[in-house]
């Protein structure tokens, strides 16, 4: 079966190549584009690396939907590069205006009826940012990359690559990318039971040689003032330690802060990330003495895991399987 798929793959790659020469692909660095042999023999890893580069360097406009949450919301992303700096405009297409603009280390949010504000944010926040920021080469320790075959997404010829998780502590993914531009077109999050639990899919993709003039203009606008979030005293921080996190994850944040517009009580906060997913771990004291109670909410790929133990409430939020959350939660100890 696999063998058959591969043959089909080869066939359509060669036909595709003919057409891609006619339409003269743009922008993206494609060192081997002239050499048919190389092009055909791109490995899954090479495709993924090309995708990563394309997503960062091309000017494009993407319309997409995400079907992980409780409703489908069409969204728009306009991405461009100005003097080597990326700019990304995001907008919900239905309902009230909700827009954001990320440029030059800041992201600004504009929402109908609310005052706009900015946050300092160096990390790409756009739709496919996680899958295009991943260190695929080191990622081979935890994922296997397999070319699945070809299909058509948003009117484009696309190739599907499976990132198969090697353990039960992370989800698997299927990435579809445009064979012409290498831009990502679809991302499925796959559970251990092989179900698609979350899907982001392009409906339309337009790649242009030059940046969309409107977002180029936006880059010159003054943005709302940057909002800085209050940090708690450092001596209070790092009261808790994680004795286990899934392989490939790192602790990227460890602090104490208050929740926006909620309790006055600070929470201890740890964020772990493997480059694709970032998981928040909240630890707070609670009055309820109920021990060993846990609750689980899953919406699409997002897990909200809550565990009560010894007047402690642990909440874990992120796109990880329950098994990972459970093991992280039970590894929490008071820091020495």
């Amino acid at each position: 079966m696999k063998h058959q798929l591969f043959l089909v793959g080869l066939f359509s790659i060669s036909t595709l190549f003919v057409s891609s020469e006619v339409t003269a692909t743009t922008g993206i660095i494609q060192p081997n584009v002239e050499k048919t042999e190389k092009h055909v023999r791109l490995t899954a890893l090479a495709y993924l690396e090309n995708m990563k580069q394309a997503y960062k360097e091309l000017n494009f406009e993407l319309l997409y939907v995400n079907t992980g949450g409780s409703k489908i919301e069409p969204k728009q992303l306009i991405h461009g590069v100005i003097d080597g700096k990326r700019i990304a405009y995001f907008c919900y297409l239905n309902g009230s205006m909700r827009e954001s603009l990320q440029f030059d280390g800041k992201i600004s949010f504009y929402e109908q009826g609310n005052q706009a504000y900015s946050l300092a944010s160096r990390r790409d926040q756009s739709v496919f940012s996680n899958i295009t920021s991943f260190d695929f080469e080191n990622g081979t320790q935890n994922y296997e990359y397999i070319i699945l075959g070809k299909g058509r997404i948003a009117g484009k010829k696309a190739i599907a690559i499976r990132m198969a998780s090697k353990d039960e502590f992370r989800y698997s993914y299927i990435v579809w990318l445009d064979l012409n531009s290498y831009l990502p077109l679809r991302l499925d999050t796959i559970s251990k039971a092989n179900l698609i639990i979350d899907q982001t899919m392009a409906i339309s993709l337009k790649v242009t040689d030059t940046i969309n003039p409107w977002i180029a203009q936006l880059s010159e606008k003054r943005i709302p003032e940057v909002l800085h979030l209050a940090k708690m005293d450092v001596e209070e921080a790092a009261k808790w330690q994680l004795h286990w996190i899934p392989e490939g994850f790192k602790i990227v944040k460890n602090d104490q802060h208050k929740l926006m517009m909620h309790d006055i009580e600070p929470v201890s906060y740890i964020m772990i990330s493997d480059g694709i997913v970032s998981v928040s771990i909240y630890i707070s004291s609670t009055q309820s003495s109920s021990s060993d109670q846990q609750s689980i909410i899953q919406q699409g790929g997002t897990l909200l895991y809550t565990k009560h133990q010894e007047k402690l409430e642990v909440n874990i939020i992120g796109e990880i399987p329950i098994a990972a959350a459970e093991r992280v939660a039970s590894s929490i100890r008071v820091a020495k």
Partner: protein
Amino acid sequence: MKEYAQDLSSLIDNELDEETVINEILEDAELQQQFSRYQLMGDVMRDESNGFDLRIDVTDSVMAAIANEVQKDNVVPLASKVKPANNVVPFMKRFGQYAIAASVAGVVVVSSLMVNQNSVTDPSVTPVLSTVPFGGAAAPVSLQVAPSSTKDEIKEQNERLEALLKDHQLQLQIQP
């Protein structure tokens, strides 16, 4: 001051027959502040207070600017008085839209799905509720609640989870 407060309230609503309370207000800074706050409540209820700093008060600067301009005496008397236009929002649907402010764009809203389970001996049997990811007609599969939880407890817990989820979204935005 207290004694005028109810009159102040009626005055604002055009429901006061005697004008003397206006004199009182004009002489009492505290009553003037109260007058402003009473107006603000209505403006907030009608959702007419968006996109600017509510603390800004231009009264003093306006009064200073017009201090030297006395209105001429030969004014045209008020001709006819008509029923005031209704400055009121048609319906109160907008109510509560600020229930939780400071939203981060793209926040996932949790529905009221909750499962409590007592002491998990076998983790594999932990029930999981998930929304249907496809088709857009996602609905809660079912709602199970530990018998000990009251409605209020669930509500409180959900509010906390929503706050955590928003914080999570926020932390993702400012992630190093």
